[in-house]
């Protein structure tokens, strides 16, 4: 799933290592999420959105729309 994690991270001036430390995960995880190789669990997605002060849909981009 496409996401704006890198954009928000860079806006805060954090390295991948710094973000990983703040979220309590490995740098590899941050790298995998940023490069769309891994969709984080819901708890981690919520932690990310709290950290950046944005909603989950602002952080993770999903094109799906409900059928009318």
């Amino acid at each position, binding site marked *: 799933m496409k996401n704006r994690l890198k954009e928000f*991270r*860079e806006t805060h*001036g*954090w*390295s*991948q*290592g*710094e973000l*990983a430390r703040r979220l*309590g*995960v*490995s*740098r*590899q*995880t941050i*790298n*995998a999420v940023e*490069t769309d*190789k*891994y969709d*984080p*669990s819901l708890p*981690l997605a919520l932690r990310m959105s709290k950290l950046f002060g944005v909603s989950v849909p602002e952080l993770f981009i999903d094109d799906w729309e409900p059928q009318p």
Partner: protein
Amino acid sequence: MNTASTDLSQPPHKGRKLALMIGGGALTGFFGALGLMTLIDSGALGSLGPSREIALLVAMLYGFMGVLVGFGALSPRLGARFLNVQDAEELREMKQSLLASGIGSVAFGGVLAVLALTGPGALLAPMAGAVAAGVLLVIATLASVRSMKHSDELMRTVSRQAGSTAFYLVLLFIGGWAAFSIFGFVPQPQMIDILTLIWAILIIATFSVCAKRGMLGMR
């Protein structure tokens, strides 16, 4: 504080590192296998046969991977030159998990090596082999549990997927071999063949999951 400058997602000398990883791995593998085959041919390990020899080669692969990972965890500066990480700091961050993983890999490979070296014509008597394999299996299990405790959700996800993939590969290869041997198309596998396949499949499954997730690309 702006720490973005320390983000090494595009590390220098990527090509050189890739060459070192592939070349070093190939050379170490070649000379390791050559050394093992020379040792086997000398008769120092008893009379083994092809099945046990293949088992020893697979066990050596586990040992090789475990030593590399363990060495990288203990010496991050050198480890960052041949392990697929961004920099030495990443190895320091993952030290506990990697060290346990390295020990587990060596011990798990040791179990297969002991099994290959136990029995008629081989180096170890059955009871000695059983004790050695049991001790190594306990070490491997404890190390794996410790490694998992220090892993985060990505590695636990990869581990679960690798386990699932391995299950289907076991069904395919061991089940297929068993079925074909029932039909009489191929000889029946020996017990050590089945164990070797399980050990080999675990490596194949792990690399396959990592490759599918794009995690084998140079970082």
